[in-house]
């Protein structure tokens, strides 16, 4: 045996010339979906199909599409049920008629009292799902969520100060937004020295979270007990008494972030690689992390400012979505839909379980999401190894 002998195989460049470029040069005839098996392309697309619209080509998993559609149907069903249950009970048929503008005796209950809150729950849940996906991907930690990296506590501290200092009620949400962002800036500054590396990002976040939590306690203990109680309720997070205004703020934030989210959905793909590998394939991992984490923090702070710390959704939705889709990282769209579904159900349960006493949605998200996450974890482990 000497050094290995060459075998006569055509080179990559020969193949590139020889292979027919049939698909690439085909005239554009509307969206095309290419299955992985077509064109004899073997496993190159890694079990994905390809959506082509003109110059746009996006690989996707059929499984993710199916999961997203199922989640969307479940979400719509949950909203209808949420609009239907309560005192008075409105039959789902009447809910649908009322929503379609047919004019029913239930318009006030369905459209003015229940719809705003259900829409708010869906939007807030979706925003938490997006925020959780982004933060967990940057932190490379399934336990990371807005309250682990201090955003919730920053918002909470500012809201607590606003609620206990007699400031106008309209100032609470803006104050909470600024507080959340200020905490995030602090975490970024502390984590920046090592390029916002996952470990340091989480550590900085945990430190900031604990410091702010201590300050919240100080403010609450020194405040009037009634104000302290209001602050406590805010901190748990509730949708009671909230509606279109809060929903509009969250929808506005998501709309503004939408172009960034489209980029993020693509950029997340490289987030699971280590920095050296990422640089090797031409990525700039630090800039990406700052962009992704910044987007996640903005979404988290915006939604927390409106509905309080209902952030268990942000922890559980990305992880459950990831396991449903069976992807190597949380899928953003499915996480958003799942977050919306979870929060709508949690708010419904909070309204109805002990009616007329209302439980804050923040309590119920943990009660519903926790066991489900455990169930999914156990099931996944049983199948894979």
């Amino acid at each position: 045996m000497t050094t290995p002998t060459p075998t006569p195989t055509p080179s990559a460049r020969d193949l590139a010339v020889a292979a027919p470029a049939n698909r690439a040069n085909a005239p554009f005839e509307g969206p095309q979906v290419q299955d992985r098996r077509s064109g004899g392309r073997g496993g190159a697309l890694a079990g994905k199909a390809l959506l082509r619209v003109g110059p746009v080509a996006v690989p996707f998993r059929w499984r993710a599409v199916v999961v997203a559609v199922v989640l969307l149907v479940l979400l719509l069903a949950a909203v209808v049920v949420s609009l239907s249950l309560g005192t008075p009970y409105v039959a789902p048929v009447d809910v649908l008629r009322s929503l379609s503008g047919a004019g029913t005796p239930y318009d006030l209950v369905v459209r003015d009292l229940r719809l705003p809150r259900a829409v708010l729950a869906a939007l807030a849940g979706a925003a938490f799902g997006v925020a959780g996906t982004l933060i967990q991907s940057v932190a490379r930690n399934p336990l990371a969520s807005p309250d682990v990296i201090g955003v919730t506590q920053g918002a909470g501290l500012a809201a607590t100060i606003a609620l206990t200092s007699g400031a106008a009620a309209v100032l609470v949400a803006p104050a909470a937004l600024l507080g959340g962002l200020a905490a995030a800036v602090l975490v970024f500054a502390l984590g920046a020295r090592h390029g916002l590396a996952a470990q340091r990002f989480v550590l900085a976040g945990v430190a900031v979270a604990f410091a702010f939590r201590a300050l919240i306690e100080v403010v609450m203990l020194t405040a009037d007990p009634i104000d302290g109680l209001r602050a406590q309720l805010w901190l748990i997070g509730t949708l009671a008494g909230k509606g279109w205004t809060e929903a509009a703020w969250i929808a506005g934030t998501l709309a503004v972030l939408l172009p960034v989210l489209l980029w993020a959905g693509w950029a997340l793909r490289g987030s699971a690689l280590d920095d050296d590998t990422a640089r090797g394939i031409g990525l700039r991992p630090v800039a990406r992390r700052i962009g992704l984490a910044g987007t996640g923090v903005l979404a988290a702070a915006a939604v927390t400012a409106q509905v309080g710390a209902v952030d268990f959704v942000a922890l559980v939705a990305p992880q459950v979505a990831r396991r449903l889709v069976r992807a190597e990282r949380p899928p953003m769209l499915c996480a958003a839909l799942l977050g919306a579904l979870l929060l709508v159900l949690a708010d419904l349960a909070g309204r109805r379980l002990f009616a007329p006493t209302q439980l804050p949605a923040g309590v119920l998200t943990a009660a519903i999401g926790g066991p489900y996450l455990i169930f999914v974890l156990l099931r996944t482990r049983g199948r894979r190894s």
Partner: protein
Amino acid sequence: MTALLSTRDLVVGYEGRTVLDGLELDLPADAFTVVVGPNACGKSTVLRTMARLLTPRRGAVLLDGAQIRDLPTRDVARRLGVLPQSPLVPEGITVADLVGRGRQPYQRWWRQWSAEDGRAVDEAMRLADVTALADRAVDTLSGGQRQRVWIAMTLAQDTDALLLDEPTTFLDLAHQVEVLDLLHRLRVERGRTVVAVLHDLNQAARYADHLVAMRDGAVVAAGPPREILDAGLVRDVFGLDCVVVPCPVTGAPLVVPARTQTSAAPPARTHSSAAPAGTPAPAGAPVGDA
């Protein structure tokens, strides 16, 4: 020879420690270059700096004569593939998916896949012999299979040059040879420039067209192994006395450590005594590098 990668007056350090101080190095195009040297001699640092994974304090890395730090990282990624020492496997990712990541420098967020991508990925998987594993999760593979998958990812980048940081570490002997054979084929059949940091002097001597021996952040010798590798060089670089004999299989220089204090003294375990000079040592035996 034409230099594909060069360093000029390169100064690199971590925290307070300077690892490379004014390094001048030229790596030839269309050759398999192997960088060897004792631990902490700066060989990985050179490779990582040339791969733009480390930013030098001073000096320049030249890719085809152009300063690499002035080139967009995406453009560099189309010309230079990099395999870091122990890359992190994303949990649950499939082989085909990971190899597909090598197409990153050719993709945009609106055009995330092209027919050319599919072709390059298929070709890379075939070359690295991982096509049969395409749908497997990378974290369920053996070390040797996993390393071939990573090499396939850098091959999918379709670059002229490949830089690999200790690609055989943590592999058993058979898998080491498998990986080195693959790199050799890339160089001979595909005309790729391959640069690797290796621990094993004998493997370096067997596979390298161009050997770079480093010590304390400086190049001690550089050239074809058959011309530069002798007992004097091993002593200079590793501080180890040895005998260099022709390899019975390839004729390349084979480094056999001479009797040392420990192996000459009555040993507790008989098999640890050094083989007599002239007898070939097993190819994978650690040579002069503790």
